[in-house]
Structure formats: C-alpha cells, structure tokens
C-alpha cells in the first residue's frame, strides 16, 4: 500500500452525507414553515388543521408495533420512515393533506387560489411536522473535491476488526466514502494481510438495514439529550454513595482508551463494579494459567518454529485471537516448494470435527470429558512431575504414546496447544508439558494478559445477576453485550435486569437485551467509530471510522464519558486525548511528537511498541496437587448430573455466527459450516455410529434432554464426532436478532449451564418422528473413486514427487481437434495448493463481498441454487467415525477449451485474449446450457431476483466495479477481472508490464494459508508458473481435455510411521491410479434432501 493512497485521518469522509446534515435541512424547512403557519391561521376549516395540532405535540410512536410490522414484512421491504411503517394518524393525515384531500377540495368548488394556498401550506407543514421526516435522498457534489478522492479509484484505510476484544488488523477499501470491502493489513501481526470469514462480513454488518437506528426509552424514540438528562439525574444519586448500585457489564475489553476511562470511573465511583461476560469466554485458559503459573498470562504461539504440533481441542487454525496468523505459520511449515520435503506434523484430539482437525495428520476423536485425562496421560508419558494418569485403552494408548514419542524427539521444536474451550486443568497440564519439552520461550511465549483486569466471566455474570435479583443494582450499563440471549440457562439474567430501575443497553441491534432495558442506544459500528483495540500479542490498532455513523450511533467511549460527566466528548477526542498522553503511549520513541505518533499509528494500522511484554512464566511446583484440588472444586461446583442419559453434550461457538452476534448477516448464515456444510441453521450433531445405533438420519427432529432442560432440533450426522457425543453450535435461534437471524436454527444456550459451559454428560435423545428440511451445500461426500482432491503421504512424495500424476488416465495435455488459442502478452492462471488449504471458507465470503454475490436463503439452498462463485468441496475418506477430510476450493477453471463457450447460443460467454472465460451478463438470455456443460459446475444462475435492488443501505456496500446481476442471467468467477483491469490501466499509465503479485484476486488476498497463487503464466518466473511447473500440479478432470487454467497442487499428509506404517495409509492409493477410495465415506448423507 503506497503512502499516497492510504490516509492518516479521513477527514474527507466526514464531509459526506450525514444524518446531521439531513436534520439541518429539516430545520431549515421548519423555519419556512413558520410563515406558512401564519398563512394557515388566516384560513378556516381545513382538513390539515388537525395535523397542525398534532404537530405541536408529536404523538409517541409505538416501537414494538413497528418492529412487529417489520418482522412480519417478507423480504427487504423499503420503508421510508418509522411513521410510514407505524401508519400513525398524523402520518396518514400528512399523506391525505398532501394529495387526495386537497384534490377533494378542488372538486368541492374551492377556488384555484385557495387550492394553491392549501397546497403550499400543506407542503410547508411537512416541515412543521418535523417528526414525519421526508425521505432524505440527496446527493452532494463536492464543492471542493478532496485531493485524495478520485472517483472510481478506491482508497484504503488501516483499522481493525475486533472479536471478543481481540483485534485483527485490516485495510478497508473505500469507494468515494463508502467502505465496500475489508482486507487484511499485511503489517499487522495478527493478520499478515489475510482475514477470516467473520471479519469479511463485518462490512455487511455496517450496512445491515436491521441495525438499531434510534435511541429509545422503554420502547419510545427519544433524543440523545433526553438520555443525557436522565443519566445526569442518575449520576447525582450515585455521586453521593460512591457509585453503589452502579454496575457496568461489558464483554472482553482490551481497548486501552476504554480501560483508562473505566479506571477513571472506578476512581470516581469506588463502589462501582465492572462485570464482564463473554459467552465464548476464555475462562478455562485464564484459570489454567493461574493454576500453572500463579498468574494470568496470554499465550502467543510461534507455529512456524514447531515441527510437531499437538492440539488438545484447539481449533487454532480457524478461531481464536491469533487464528489467521497461526494458519499462515502452519501452512508455511508444510509448504513443499522446490526440493523441500520438510513438513510439520499435526496431531489433533477433539470431540467435534473442526477445521484444524480436518487438517490433522492424525486425528483422535475423543469425548470432551476425557480431554483432561488425555492431557494428563500425555504429561505422564512425557515425564511431567506429578502426572500419573492411568493407562488408556489400547487404541488411545498407542496413539498417545506415539505422540509423546514424537514430541520428545522434537524438544523445543514442538508445541502442545489447549483449546479455549478446554478446562483449566487441561490448560495447566499443557503449560507443564510445554515447559517440560522446553518449548516455553521458543514455540510458546507468555505475555502480560491482553484483557484488562481479567476475571472469570462466568462468576462475574453470576455475581451481577445475584446482586440485581437482591436489589443491589440501581444503575446497569450493558455495553455491546447481549446477555439476555447468551447467558447460561441457569442464570436468570433477564429476570434480574427487570428489577434494575435504570438499565441501559448499547448495541448494534435492538436485541433481546435491549428489550429488557429501560434505555437502548444504537451503537456505532466499528467502521463508523473511533476506538482502539489490541491484538493477540497486545499490539494496539487505532480504530478509525470509514464513514460517519449511518444512524448516529454512539460508542462505548461516549457512554462512559457521559458517566464521567463529559456528555459532549466525541469518541475521536477521547481516543486521541488518551494517545496524546505520554503515559498511554509507552511505545513512542524519543523525539517523536504525540501528533506524529498518532498519525503514524493511524496510517500503519498499528501503534509501534505496544506489544504486551513477554513475561517469564514458570510452572510452580506442586502443580499436580493444585490440579487435584481444582478437580475436586470443579466436581463440587458441577451440578449433579441429572443422568438423563449416557451422551455427552459439547457446545461450541458457531464457526461463522460465533456467539450469535453475527446471526443477522446473511453472508455468514449462508456460508457453509466448514465440516457439516450446513447453512441457515444449526443441528444436533452426532457421529455416524450414534446415529446408526439410535436410528437417526439427517433431519430427524429430536428432543435433547440434558440436566433437566430440553431442546428440540434436527439431527445432522457429522463424520468424525467422538463416540457418544452430541455437538451443539451456539448463536442460532435468535428471537430479536433481525429479519435474517430470527427463527433460524435453535437456541443451544437454552440447555447450556454455567457449571459446564463447554461440555457435560447426562444427555439423552428422543426421536420425535418429525423431520425438518435442512440446507446443506454439499450432499455427497465421497469422491466415488475419482481423483479429484488428490493426496498422498510424505513418504510417497519423497519417493516420487510426481506421485499424483499416476492418477491421470489420459494425458491432460493430449491432442485436440480445435486449434490452440495463441496467447501473447498476459495469460492469467491460478494454482491452488491443497496442501496449504485448511478449508476455512474465507475465500468464499471474500469473493461474495468483492463480486456483489447475492444470498439466496434457506429454501433456495435446499433447492440447490446457492450462488457462491468459489466453493470449497469437502470429501471424506476412510472410516465413517474417523474419516480423513479433503478440502478443495473450486472457482471457475477458466478452461482453454471451455465447454461452456461452445454451447452458448448468444455468445454471452467468450474467451478473452488473455485466456479468461468471460461472462457478458448483459448478453446472457439464460438458457443454462453452459451450466449443464460445465464439468465443474461453477456457474451460478439467478433463478430469481436475489440481489436487493431496493434497500438503500445495501446499495452502498456494493463494489462499483462489478455488475449487480439481475434475474435470469448466469454468473461466474472471472478471476476478479475488475482488479486485473485496474492494474492493467495502472501499469499502462506507468509504461510497464504488470508485475507478478501485483494483481490479487479476492480469494487469494483473503487466504490465511496463502494457498492460492495467481498471475501471468506466460511469465515463467511468476509464482503461479513455478507452482504449475511443480510435480504436485494437476488439472481437475484434466482427462476431459478442457485444459483448465486453474490447477491444483496435490496435498501431502505427514503421517507418523509409528501410527501408520508406510503402505498402510488409506490416503495412498498404493500407486497407479487404482480406484482405491471407492469405499470413501458417504457420511450417511443420501441425496434425499
């Protein structure tokens, strides 16, 4: 990113359309209206006089009714103002006055002059009646065009997206003031230029038309000033008693500015309590660190230095604060470029299949309840003092001993990782193991905790709930959290909130929690607000807004400032003031002024020198004793198992919706879950054996009874689930999440209790005899003996780097009857390294954001009409209960002999002279012949009008460089041809060729594992050409003679010879293109959906 295109502060953005500007216009109108009122007074008997009376005292608007109406509305209906929806009488009168009533007067014989007067007056009244806001549809030309804004040329701003308080550095693409796409910030350590799927979707969240747009008190719209006044009264009461009864509830807070503000608050109100609750908390990790080291630390891994990686329940590649970085390091550790045959080896023990587990060289499905034992067994085998776990059964014992032996061989070059959802005991053992193996300081670093004033979230929420129920809470401020929805089932937070006299909810949505609170304040989105946040390693990014708040939202900084008696402070000033203080900017080098440091930090997207300090953490002696004590403590806390049955329930955040906060983002709802391929809803996930034994099939509705609570949901078979384990994804089943979120899936929080947040035993299933249709983007899971996602073992690769070419039945470069296309100049090609791909789906959603791809909804996915231009195919191989996973991203292959091109009757899909298979949307009449004839089925058809052409907010999100397709046309990937053209223009202007790596397709850009290379295959030196020349390169369905431009690099597993003697591997095919994997698991999924 050159300095000229990235700006330090986007002052220019703020000159764009803002609601304030619109209000000014209204104010001007009301001045004019005063004159009109005089005119009105002179006239008698007018139907609009009633409107005048109501205008003086506007009627209150029933927000609940509006919501109900909006909820009842099918699809994205455009509504111009709340009043229109509410159909209040005044609105009706205004409409009547403006048109038909006046017309009636004319027919009544009133003179033309009177009619005009009336008309003028009623129009003017629109201004008087300021509550009936006219739709503001104004365009503002730049009077003075800002220097950096060139229409058609996007600008990039560095900022950060946070999840659970942890930052991922981003560069946000902005077209004339509208953020349209989020990319990773290459300079940011957590991002390294890539992002994850959730971050990609935050741009959609910004424009979500269901976001809360107003401030309300008990359901009635109020101005912010009213809130400030009432808060003022509240503060007066608090000043006297030191803040007794004042409670603050937030999620994980890492923002230095907010922390400083809260600390100031604590100083001012010593009796105030600050509660934290995050449904996906890291309580286990926190307590584990305390157990092992006696203090809180945050763990910072260096996967790139690890040759052996063992994950105990950790989905570290796809979730958690460092996920994006770890995925890159992991992929780098097994990249087989050139002659390298160095590969790390990944072992994963987990109860539910995850992205990380799918990538494992050896995966052990294990019940969650046995994880602590597995950790201790591993510790025992490695000789950790005090560990003395009993021997597991033979199969597990062989596995664990092989892992232990492998770890011992790689002392200091290995790492054991415990998942965020694992217990304190597992974490403590893992810390001890890493210490024992000498990994601490090498592959594992311990830093000062990133979270401010860390506490146990579970206890913190329980305490607040108990205090509120006891009437000890008078003022409760809930900042950006939704505990009414996501608190544990045994914590009656909703009931407790009702007893609090003054409660406030700041949130992006008017959700389950705001419904219970007195005040709801619409929150500014992170792309609209000033703030700061810290990454997994503590590095601070200053969050800068890309656009003025669309709905005048407020930030947590402003609310806390109001409590501190600064109601008018803006978030910008608060954050900047914090950073101008020397103490707060410890990383500032000598001689750098505060202003320079501020500007530099904004520009780079990270504040130098703010990394959390690396601390030395040594495992305290007597760990085993403390763990035993902890175990006893856990058992006493744990509710007595009701023993409903013998199954174990495992809760996990939804891979895309997380704890439910992203449930209203249709992109994420429709993004297939990495393992199950389910969209639009969650399921009771069970393994194949459990399903078989209990006669369950996909879609069978069951009642899950667990600890005296129950829920109803459809079953889905997830191959690779541990025995007797039931998996539940959180975050579904929202009731007030928005039009997209509501009613999708079931709410797993309903059975999740605080004593067992991530897993618990004693569950039973009862088949109810109904079935529910479920949407999955892939119904067939076996490769049917076809060599599609090719793979082998490291031994095979070492023996014959070109092992995969034996799967070719016919020479893919064979002769063709058609003359070859000549390609002079550029010839674009892509290579996808299946060895690097982790199957996280980020490419799919990045493509969706870049290319204005619509979502189709649950029913249409069931109908088989999803629109993703790049999908990730996933095949199972081997045993149904413990299969291997193979991922294969499939974009358009841009075939040189494209079967689609010949059959299009109207020449709507044609070959470009650079080898792209172009799609001319305007020319397409929609015969769908091309799709039938495409062997890869990458073409997508607009069976209905799926792009929302009406909702104003969504229009702003779209990429202006890509056509928004309408009904009845075929669409497909064209290697982000808009980016190619941008760079071509740039290169031409500079009189040079396009450099290798200059063009990045959206899928390539986002990929955390750098699995995709793209470039000019006429340039032998280009990355993509080198990849294609490698021995692992092959064409998908090459025997058809399509000559695809997108090719794949076969994946290579690195099995431990002790666990899988060479030749026995079921990934190996034993050589020459046998149809060895025909027994591949079908996962029990028929095509009957």
């Amino acid at each position, binding site marked *: 990113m050159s300095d000229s295109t990235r700006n330090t502060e986007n002052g220019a953005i703020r000159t764009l359309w803002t609601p304030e500007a619109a209000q000014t216009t209204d104010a001007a109108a009301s001045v004019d209206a005063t004159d009109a009122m005089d005119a009105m007074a002179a006239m008698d008997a007018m139907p609009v006089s009633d409107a005048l009376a109501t205008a003086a005292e506007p009627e209150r608007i029933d927000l609940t009714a509006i919501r109900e109406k909006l909820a009842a509305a099918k699809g994205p209906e455009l509504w111009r103002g709340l009043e229109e929806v509410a159909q209040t009488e005044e609105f009706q009168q205004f409409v009547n006055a403006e048109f038909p009533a006046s017309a009636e007067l004319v027919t009544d014989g009133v003179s033309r002059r009177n009619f005009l007067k009336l008309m003028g007056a009623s129009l003017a009244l629109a201004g008087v009646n300021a509550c009936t806001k006219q739709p503001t549809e104004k365009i503002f030309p730049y009077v003075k065009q800002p220097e950096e804004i060139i229409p058609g040329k996007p600008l990039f701003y560095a900022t950060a997206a946070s999840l659970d308080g942890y930052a991922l550095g981003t560069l946000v693409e902005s077209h004339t003031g509208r953020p349209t796409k989020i990319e990773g910030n290459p300079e940011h350590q957590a991002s390294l230029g890539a992002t994850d799927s959730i971050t990609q979707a935050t741009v959609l969240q910004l424009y979500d038309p269901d976001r809360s747009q107003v401030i309300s008190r008990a359901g009635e719209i109020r101005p912010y000033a009213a809130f400030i006044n009432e808060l003022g009264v509240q503060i007066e009461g608090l000043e006297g008693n030191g803040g007794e009864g004042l409670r603050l509830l937030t999620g994980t807070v890492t923002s230095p500015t907010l922390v400083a503000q809260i600390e100031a608050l604590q100083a001012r109100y010593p009796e105030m309590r600050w509660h934290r609750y995050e449904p996906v908390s890291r309580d286990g990790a926190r307590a584990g660190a305390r157990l092992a080291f006696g203090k809180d630390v945050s763990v910072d891994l260096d996967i790139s230095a690890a040759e052996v990686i063992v994950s105990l329940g950790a989905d570290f590649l796809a979730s958690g604060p460092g996920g994006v970085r770890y995925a890159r390091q992991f992929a780098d550790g097994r990249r087989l470029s050139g002659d390298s045959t160095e590969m790390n080896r990944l072992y994963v023990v987990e109860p539910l299949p995850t992205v990380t587990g799918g990538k494992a060289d050896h995966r052990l499905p294990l019940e969650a309840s046995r994880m602590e034992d597995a950790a201790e067994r591993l510790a025992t085998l490695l000789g950790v003092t005090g560990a003395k776990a009993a021997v597991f059964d033979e199969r597990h014992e062989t596995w664990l001993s092989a892992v232990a032996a492998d770890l011992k061989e790689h002392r200091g070059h290995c790492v054991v990782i415990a998942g965020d959802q694992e217990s304190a005991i597992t974490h403590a053992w893992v810390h001890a193991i890493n210490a024992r193996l000498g990994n601490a300081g090498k592959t594992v670093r311990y830093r000062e905790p990133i979270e401010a004033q860390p506490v146990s979230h579970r206890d913190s929420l329980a305490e607040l709930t108990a205090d509120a129920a006891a009437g000890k809470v008078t003022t409760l401020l809930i900042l950006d959290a939704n505990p009414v929805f996501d608190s544990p089932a045994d914590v009656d937070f909703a009931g407790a909130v009702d007893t609090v006299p003054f409660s406030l909810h700041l949130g992006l949505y008017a959700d389950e929690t705001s419904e219970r609170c007195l005040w709801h304040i619409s929150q500014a989105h992170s792309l609209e607000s000033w703030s700061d946040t810290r990454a997994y390693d503590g590095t601070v990014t200053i969050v800068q807004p890309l656009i003025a708040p669309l709905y005048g939202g407020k930030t947590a900084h402003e609310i806390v400032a109001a409590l501190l008696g600064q109601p008018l402070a803006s978030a910008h000033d608060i954050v900047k003031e914090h950073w101008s203080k020397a103490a707060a900017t410890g990383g500032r080098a000598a001689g750098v002024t505060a202003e320079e440091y501020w500007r530099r930090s904004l520009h780079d997207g990270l504040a130098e020198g703010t990394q959390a300090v690396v601390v030395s953490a040594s495992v305290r002696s007597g760990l085993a004793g403390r763990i035993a004590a902890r175990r006893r403590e856990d058992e006493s806390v744990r509710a007595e198992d009701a023993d409903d049955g013998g199954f174990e329930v495992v809760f996990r955040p939804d891979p895309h919706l997380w704890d439910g906060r992203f449930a209203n983002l249709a992109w994420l709802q429709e993004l297939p879950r990495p393992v199950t391929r389910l969209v639009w809803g969650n399921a009771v996930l069970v393994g194949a054996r459990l399903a078989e034994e209990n006669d369950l099939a996909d879609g069978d509705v069951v009642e899950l009874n667990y600890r005296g609570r129950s829920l109803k949901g459809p079953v889905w078979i997830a191959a690779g689930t541990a025995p007797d384990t039931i998996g539940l994804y959180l975050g579904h089943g929202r009731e007030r999440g928005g039009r997209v979120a509501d009613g999708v899936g079931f709410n797993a929080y309903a059975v999740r209790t605080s004593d067992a947040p991530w897993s618990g035993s004693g569950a039973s299933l009862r088949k109810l005899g109904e079935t529910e249709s479920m949407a999955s983007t*892939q*119904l*067939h*899971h*076996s*490769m*049917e*003996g*076809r060599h*599609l996602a090719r793979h082998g073992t490291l031994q095979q690769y070492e023996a014959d780097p070109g092992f995969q070419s034996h799967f070719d039945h016919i020479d893919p470069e064979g002769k063709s009857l058609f003359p070859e296309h000549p390609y002079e100049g550029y010839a674009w090609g892509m290579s996808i390294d299946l060895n690097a791909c982790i199957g996280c789906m980020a490419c799919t959603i990045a493509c969706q954001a870049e290319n204005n791809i619509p979502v189709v909804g649950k029913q*249409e996915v069931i*109908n*088989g*009409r999803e629109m993703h231009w790049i*999908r990730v*195919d*996933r*095949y199972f191989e081997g045993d149904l209960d413990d299969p291997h996973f193979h991922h*294969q991203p*499939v974009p358009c292959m841009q075939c040189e002999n494209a*079967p689609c091109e*010949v*059959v*299009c*009757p*109207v*020449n709507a899909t044609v070959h470009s002279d650079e080898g792209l298979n172009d799609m001319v949307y305007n*020319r*397409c*009449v*929609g*015969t*769908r*012949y091309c*799709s*039938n*004839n495409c*062997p*890869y*089925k990458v*073409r*997508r*058809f*607009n*069976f*209905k*009008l799926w792009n929302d052409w009406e909702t104003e907010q969504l229009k702003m999100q779209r990429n202006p460089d890509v056509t928004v397709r309408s*009904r*009845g*046309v*075929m669409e497909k990937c064209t290697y982000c041809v808009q980016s190619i053209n941008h760079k071509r223009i740039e290169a031409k202007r500079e009189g040079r060729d396009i450099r290798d790596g200059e063009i990045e397709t959206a899928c390539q850009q986002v990929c955390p594992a750098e699995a995709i290379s793209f470039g000019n295959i006429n340039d032998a030196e280009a990355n993509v050409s080198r990849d294609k020349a490698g021995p692992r390169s092959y064409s*998908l*369905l090459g025997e*058809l003679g399509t000559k695809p431009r997108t090719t794949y690099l076969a994946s290579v597993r690195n099995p431990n010879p002790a666990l899988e003697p060479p030749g026995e591997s079921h990934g190996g095919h034993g050589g020459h293109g046998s*149809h060895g994997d025909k027994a591949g698991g079908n996962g029990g999924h*028929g*095509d*009957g*959906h």
Partner: protein
Amino acid sequence: MATKRKVDADLEALRGPIIAPGHTLGSVTDKISEVVLEKGTPKGWFIGFAISFSLLMMMLMSITYLLAVGTGVWGVNVPVGWGFAIINFVWWIGIGHAGTLISAILLLLRQKWRTSINRFAEAMTLFAVACAGIFPILHTGRPWLAYWLFPYPNTMAMWPNFRSPLIWDVFAVSTYATVSAMFWYIGLIPDFATLRDRSTNRVGQTIYGALAMGWRGSAEHWGRYETAYLLLAGLSTPLVVSVHTIVSFDFAVSVVPGWHATIFPPYFVAGAIFAGFAMVMVLAIPLRRFYGLQDFVTMRHLDYMARVLLATGLFVGYGYMTDAFIAFYGANPYEEYMMMNRFEGPYAPFYWALIACNVVSIQALWFQRVRSSTVALFIIAIIVSIGMWLERFVIVVTSLHRDFLPSSWGMYSGTFWDWSLYIGTMGLFGTLLFLFIRFMPMISIFEMRTLLPEAEVEEHD
C-alpha cells in the same frame, strides 16, 4: 399384369378395407363435411373444449407467474439446469413427428392408407410444434430476449453463436414449423373449396372462400396442386429426420455423461416417430368412435399404425441397449457411473418404468388380437406416450444430477408450476384440436374420394 393386379386386390381384401364398402363420392363428402357444417355442436365437443380451454387458462396463469417471479418457480437448479421445459419440448416435438411422416414419407411411398389419418396427423404436428415452441422460449432466464437467438441485423453488431446446438435448434424447429404449416394448408385448399361450396351461411362461405384461395378444381389447379404437394412432401421428408436429429444434438454435443453419445440422432428420430404414432392413435381411436368415422379410419389403419409402433418401439429398445452397452464397453468411468446410477440410483424407478412402458408394453402388439382391439391399442398408446415422456426425463435429469464432481451432485423434482405449464400445454393442444375438428375437415375429403372404386381409373400403360 392383370394377374398381379388380381393378387394385389385379393391381398387388399384380406387385409381389410381402408375405406368401408358402400360409400360413394357423395357419401364420403357428406360424412366428413357434416362434422364441420352441421347445425348445432354436439355436447361432447363442448365438454371437451371446456376442459381443454380451462387447462389453457391454467397455462396462461402459469406463464404469468413464471414471468413475474422468474425461472426459480420451477424445480431447476445447479446441477440440473434443464428440467421440465426441455423434457416437454422434446416430448412435444417428438409427437409432432408422426404427422409429417404420415403425410410426406407415406405419400412418397404411395401408401394409400395414410389418406384417412394424414389430415389430423398433420394438424396434430402443427399443434404439437406450437406447444413445443413455447418451452424453449419460456425456458430461458430472460424470455423477452429470446429473439437474440435469431441472426438478425442489430445495433449490437452481434451474431448468435453458430457453434451452439441451440442455434441449430432454432433453425430446425422454425423450418419444421413453417414447412409443416404450408404442407397442411396446401392440403386443405381443395377441401376448403368443398366447404365453401357446401356452406349454407354467409360467414362460412366468406371464410372458407378466402381460405380456398379461389380454388375451382380445374385440371390446371389440380396439376399445380399435385406438383406443389409433392414438392413439399419432398421438402418435409428430410425434415422428419433432421429436426429430431438436431434436437438430439443439444444433448449429444455436450460433455455430460449420458448425453454425449453418437447413438442419439437415430435413436431420437425413432423415438419421435414412436411417440408420434402413439399420439395419433390416442387421438384417432376416440375420434373415429365419437364422430362415427369407423368407415374411414378402419381397423386396417389401426393395425398398420400398431405395426409401426412396434417397429419403432423395437428401434428405441435397441437404442437403450446400445446406450447401456457402450457405457460399459467404453470403459469411461463417468459413463459407467451414469448408467449404474440410472439402473440403481435415486431415479431408478423412472428408468425401469420407462423400460416397462416403451419396451415391455409394446410386445403385446405382436399379437393380432391386441392389434384388433381398440381398447388395448388405446391403452398401449397412452402407456407409450407416458414412456416417451419418462425417457426424456431420464435422459435430461439422471445425466445432469450426477455428473463429474460428486460435490455438486443434487436432486431435481418438478414444482407445481412445472406441472401446470406442462398440463397447460396439453390444454393448448386440446383447444386447438377441438377448434380444428369443429371448423375444418379432419379427414381429407378429396383424397378419400380417390380411394373409392369409382375413382379407379384404368391405367394405360
């Protein structure tokens, strides 16, 4: 010479008459034109017309909804991009084949028995092509732009893609429709003149008069007529083969396993004739009974048609066998999988039903007793019509729903709107047919007259 004629005559007698004995020139004319010119319309006609017309209205409703909401109202998806629309298109086009075959090829082969059925077989062809023509247009995602498939001079300076079989289809089907219409109309001219002359009211006289184009029955007219009719027959003959051959190219030219097969053109043509004859029988059997035309459409006709049905049905059965054989003999794993999937995949019941309808059921036609039972023939003809629809369903859907990448495999089923459009086109067909029966001579009057002994002219060698 005389002996041969004697033998021929005996043989004819043995086969049964192609026109019942006792008819004169006048009685033939009376009998056929009476259907059109009689006062008052039979109740049965009204009932039939009302049913057909209601279905036609349903078709219009279905089309309206389709245009308003989009192709998505149907069951098509990815991977099954073609569904009912293409199945029905091929089915209707196939039905249309018998008309041209009977009219043109049998004319050229001087098969006199064709005379009593050719007129409504031709009409059937036209109406079937009209029904078929609706589908490819509505099938497109943007039907209002379907004219882009025609090569016409335009400001976009764009030609259609002549490599695409769909373009070949456009030419094949439109040529076929044009020639069929002309052939049918020219054949009608002398009969229009008869109706003009026999009409007792002004309206009939005017309309039939205009349609008769001034036909006076002079020798010169007859001479020109014969030449034109023969030429058109010659022109139509290759079309019988070409249309369905080209329709089969839609499939055969693609790479889809189950479509990409060289057997397709002959197999499709045979299938079309098979389907067409079945439909002629479905229509002829009730019509001759209702209008008492047993004298003109005799059992001998039905017998002949049953034989054609059996012969073409055997062709089709051979096609299925070859298809299966090549799939395994060819050692192409995708083809093999496709065939196994037809045999035992989720759509296997459709495949076996098609075999039962098209191969098994027609074996009954080997028996003279079956061939002489109108009820049995009618039932078999209905079964064959269903079977031919299933054949197209199996070809289109089972090939597409599981092709190369298992990850994309899916399922397909028709929705209410698929069915309503399909059944609606039957309404269109029925409506046109009922109007035709009521207002035009359904059997060629003048040609029937040539079959009478009075028309026998001594040939002078």
